[in-house]
């Protein structure tokens, strides 16, 4: 049973367009893509950010890249110069997502395997 941060199994980058922030996330090991597809849902990402992201979170899947693009509305406190945040351009939002803790990582993967058997 392992407790991992998302950063241990994924990498990504974040950016801004106005008050919308997008974070792309890719599985470090392609084998983890299916697990991430199950685990890293838009709902879970929205819940993770809590107050930081006021609007909806949409997830787009890009299986050929073993990755996802999360588009988060009203995520940057108004965005650009309106925002009073230190990181008004959302450059550190990817790392904020990457600190998500995944409990029982091995178990979840085993669970997947069991289903396949």
């Amino acid at each position, binding site marked *: 049973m392992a407790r991992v941060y998302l950063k241990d199994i994924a990498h990504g*980058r974040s*950016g801004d*367009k106005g008050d919308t922030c997008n974070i792309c996330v890719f599985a470090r090991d392609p084998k983890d893509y299916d697990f991430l597809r199950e685990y890293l849902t838009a709902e879970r990402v929205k819940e993770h950010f809590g107050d930081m992201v006021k609007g909806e979170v949409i997830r787009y899947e890009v299986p*050929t890249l073993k990755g996802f693009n999360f588009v988060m509305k009203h995520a940057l406190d108004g965005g650009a110069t309106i925002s*009073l*945040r230190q990181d008004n351009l959302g450059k550190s939002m990817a790392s904020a997502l990457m600190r998500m803790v995944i409990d029982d990582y091995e178990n979840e993967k085993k669970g997947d395997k069991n289903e396949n058997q």
Partner: protein
Amino acid sequence: MKRVRIGGGQGFWGDSPDGAIHLVKEGDIQYLGCDYLAELTLSIMQRQKLKNPKDGYAKDFIKLMETIAEECKEKNIRVISNAGGMNIVEAVNQLSNVIKKQNIKNYKIGYVLGDDIKDRLPELMKEGLEFRNIDTGHKIDEIMDRIVNVNVYYGHEPLKECIERGADTVIVGRCTDSALFLAPLAYEFKWQKNDYDKLARGIMAGHMLECGGQVTGGNYDFDWRAVHDMDNLGYPIVEMTDDSFYITKTEKSGGLVTEESCKEQILYEVHDPSNYMTPDVVVDLSRVELEEVGKDKVEIKNIRGRASSDKYKLSVGYHAGFKVVTHLAFAWPDAYEKAQYAADIIMKKMKRKNLKVEDMRIDYIGLNSLHLGLADTSLEVVNNLNEVVLRIAIRTLEKEEAYKIVPEIAPLQLNGPPGASFFGGRARIQEVIALWPTFIPKDAVKLTSHIREVE
């Protein structure tokens, strides 16, 4: 088979010129694209132009050209840039001066006018255009008296015309960043308006190049420690044929090009990957494939395109008040507790001064200013902080309101909790410019291509 190499020389206004200079020397490129404009850059440039009519463009570009123009002319490297910002003609004048001073012969500067439509707004509104905010649905009337700039995000065609007419350098304002790179590719390969897949490939070439070092090892989350010689980070080169597309860099530079560095850039600031909209083409990245085909060389395949809409996006910046950010540092012991107490003192004083704010934030740099509520602020972390910087930011409607907090920070070194350290001088009040996202029908915009021959 025809092969065209384009370098991405600038990621933003304020980027280092080193990457671009290296590309000219060592990149074996035929074109160099230099992007200077982010979402709010034009508003800042317009403010500069209002203060000084000869200002309002990216002067960095002229400096860069002082260094590279002669070598570019010799090697027939054509330079394409949106450095013209809000004062394209003045940028052309300044580049002409450089060319004359360096005695470079037969030089043609291409430029495109017509993206700045602020003065045409009333006339267009009379014709019935409402420029509704795409987020809120509101009509633009409510910000009319506060508008700073109105510019059209246009596509590659007028730039291509300048290249066709022999321009050594093309200077434009607010075309899309990616059009700077699509224009020479469409010219070289004679891509037509309905070659959607090819145009989409050209747009993505631009997308991969327009952020400079971000695809060659900069901001590389996958494994930043693996990026060698970051002090000499190579800027990216796209190698394109009529039916293939590679990202690479020079051997002599630092950095890397890997599948992962390309992945992180390809979805950067993209929303729906199957529907990436530009004025030239709508790009579908949903089945894109990346493959490392050699050292620092990645092939990008399976990009699809389809027709773009009949509208251009507009970049409208409008005045939305003022903001000021203040800092005060505290050291161990009890750094966080002292900083919190200082914040409390400031807040009480501001209340007495009857400060009226639109918004306010209190954060602690070194603890939670980036990850905010997600930061670890457990007692274990907080009690052991060596130092922390109190950051107070306020946004106000009136400048005088913002000023109320400015003189109150430094005195806390003598009048507040012990060990406070003030740095950076008194905080500067900044104008807040907000964006009004909206569209304009393409046929309401008149873009014109020009050539100035420098004798």
